[in-house]
């Protein structure tokens, strides 16, 4: 696929891509990159602002903030990305099955999706974490269920539209089987909009993960997450504002970057859509 690369060639897409590459690299290489252990306490040096030894300062236990920010990226990104991946996969299966088989299955899926759709994601996620219990796994499942309706709905709509296309009729009139039509024609064509939507949802999922972490429902201490770090820093806004500012900035910039890249991706894909229609 060339569209993701073309998206990088747009100015905002390129900048966003650069930041995302940086964050992803930091998350992947956290054990190598970070100068300290994420749980190494140094109480005499607590509440220190930025210095040569601690580039972003230290928190209330004297732990290095840069280290915790990098490890936090690992938690936040992996939870958000995994949750969305699960959500996209299950949503595509459900949506495709509903659109393909129709009948009672379609009605059942539609009713459940519409019901879930009427609640905000945060509420669904909170209820689920309350049932499953706090922690990384609980957050991951909660987030993936919260976004399931979105991808089911989108895939279903895509497949329903595509089913009426001439090239599906053409494939059928040349003897293509149901499986061939579903897996070789319908799903690949439905993939692009679903992936763009997944990209944008990942940004939302990072915020949702941070929110759950802020409430103390995400990754449990001492494992750092951006939301958890902000939660700890919220009590110390006047004493040591950097403790909440840096993870807050990390969340904000990352989410903005994902949205900008997503927009660039939509633009890059749109160009192709237009070319596709012209003779």
């Amino acid at each position, binding site marked *: 696929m060339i569209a993701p690369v073309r998206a990088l060639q747009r100015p905002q897409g390129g900048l966003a891509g650069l930041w995302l590459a940086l964050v992803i690299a930091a998350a992947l290489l956290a054990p190598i990159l970070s100068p300290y252990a994420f749980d190494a306490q140094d109480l005499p040096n607590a509440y220190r602002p930025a210095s040569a030894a601690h580039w972003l300062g230290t928190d209330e236990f004297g732990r290095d903030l840069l280290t915790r920010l990098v490890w936090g990226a690992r938690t936040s990104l992996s939870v958000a990305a995994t949750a969305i991946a699960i959500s996209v996969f299950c949503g595509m299966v459900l949506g495709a099955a509903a659109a393909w088989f129709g009948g009672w299955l379609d009605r059942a899926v539609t009713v459940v999706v519409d019901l879930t759709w009427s609640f905000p994601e945060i509420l669904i996620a909170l209820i689920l974490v309350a049932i499953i219990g706090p922690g990384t796994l609980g957050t991951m499942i909660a987030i993936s269920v919260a976004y399931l309706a979105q991808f089911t709905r989108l895939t279903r709509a895509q497949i329903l539209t595509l089913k009426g296309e001439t090239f599906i009729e*053409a494939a059928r009139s*040349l*003897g293509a089987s149901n499986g061939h039509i579903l897996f*070789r*024609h319908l799903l*690949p064509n439905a993939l692009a909009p679903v992936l763009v939507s997944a990209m944008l949802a990942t940004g939302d999922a990072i915020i949702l993960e941070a929110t759950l972490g802020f409430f103390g429902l995400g990754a449990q201490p001492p494992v750092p997450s951006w939301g958890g770090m902000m939660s700890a820093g919220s009590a110390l806004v006047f004493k040591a504002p950097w403790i909440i500012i840096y993870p807050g900035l990390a969340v904000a910039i990352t989410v903005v970057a994902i949205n900008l890249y997503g927009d660039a991706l939509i633009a890059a894909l749109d160009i192709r859509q237009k070319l*596709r229609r012209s003779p």
Partner: protein
Amino acid sequence: MTALLDLASVSVSIGSAPLLDSISLRVDRGQIVGLVGESGSGKSLTAMAAMGLLPLIGGRVTGGNVRFDGQDMALMTDTQRRVLRGRRIGFVTQNPMTALDPVQRIGEQVDVVSRLHLGLPQAAARVRTLDLLTQLRIPDAASVAEAWPHQLSGGMKQRIVIAMALAGEPDLIIADEPTTALDVTVQAQIIQILGALVRDRGLALLLITHDMGVVAQVCDRVAVLYAGRLAEEGPVSDIFAAPAHPYTSALIGCIPQDGMAQGSLRGIPGAVPSALAMPPGCRFHPRCERASDLCRTVVPAPESCGQGTVACHHAGVIA
């Protein structure tokens, strides 16, 4: 000899609306048959019936039977019908702009037909694809095979669709208005290529069109549909020389001729009646200049006329 495709008094309904009424049509091996009629006359529906694809659009055969190579399609299993499509019957769709999957390369889309129906391995399928594209006079077939559908012109796409129809080595090609979506200049070219390929390979072709000019150019026989009924059927030479049905002669009158005086090109007044409000008797009578009281009440039965059939109470009266 059994006909390759034989529709015997086939009637088709969608829901409660009867759309085709006792259509009989025969296509022999090596023959090019034109199926002509205005929009809404049931041409495409006849093609769907011939391929066993009616359930897809909610239609069903309510009378008569469709035989392919002597076998009754209604008695086949779904799998048998599916294998028939592509392997024995190739289909060329109406609109080449949307007939190709936008996210697959051209080559893959043609390869898959011969892989599926002839069981060829990928490499052999590609050789066959390139061979087909070259026969369809596509310059630089190798790079076209690597192209995406949006990179090709309409005429090119229609050739690819024809290549897909030919890839399974079928005995019969059904082409549903293969040139309506194309530029006039390209239309003639595509018809010529299609006709030549079919003749060279000894295939049969059912060419659905609303253009009598195209019929005169390539077909052996022609069947004229009007409002879901067969008006006239017979050899092209006979029908063009002396059309027996007033609708046929009106259609032929719609072909522009060289040296025609200004304003002498005729149209047919009125429009095809709706399937839900068919006139009684002969369905053409409201638009017919020969209509009598008989036409308004009694449905004309098909009668043989030379080497063809015609369904008209006043057949050939004013030739």
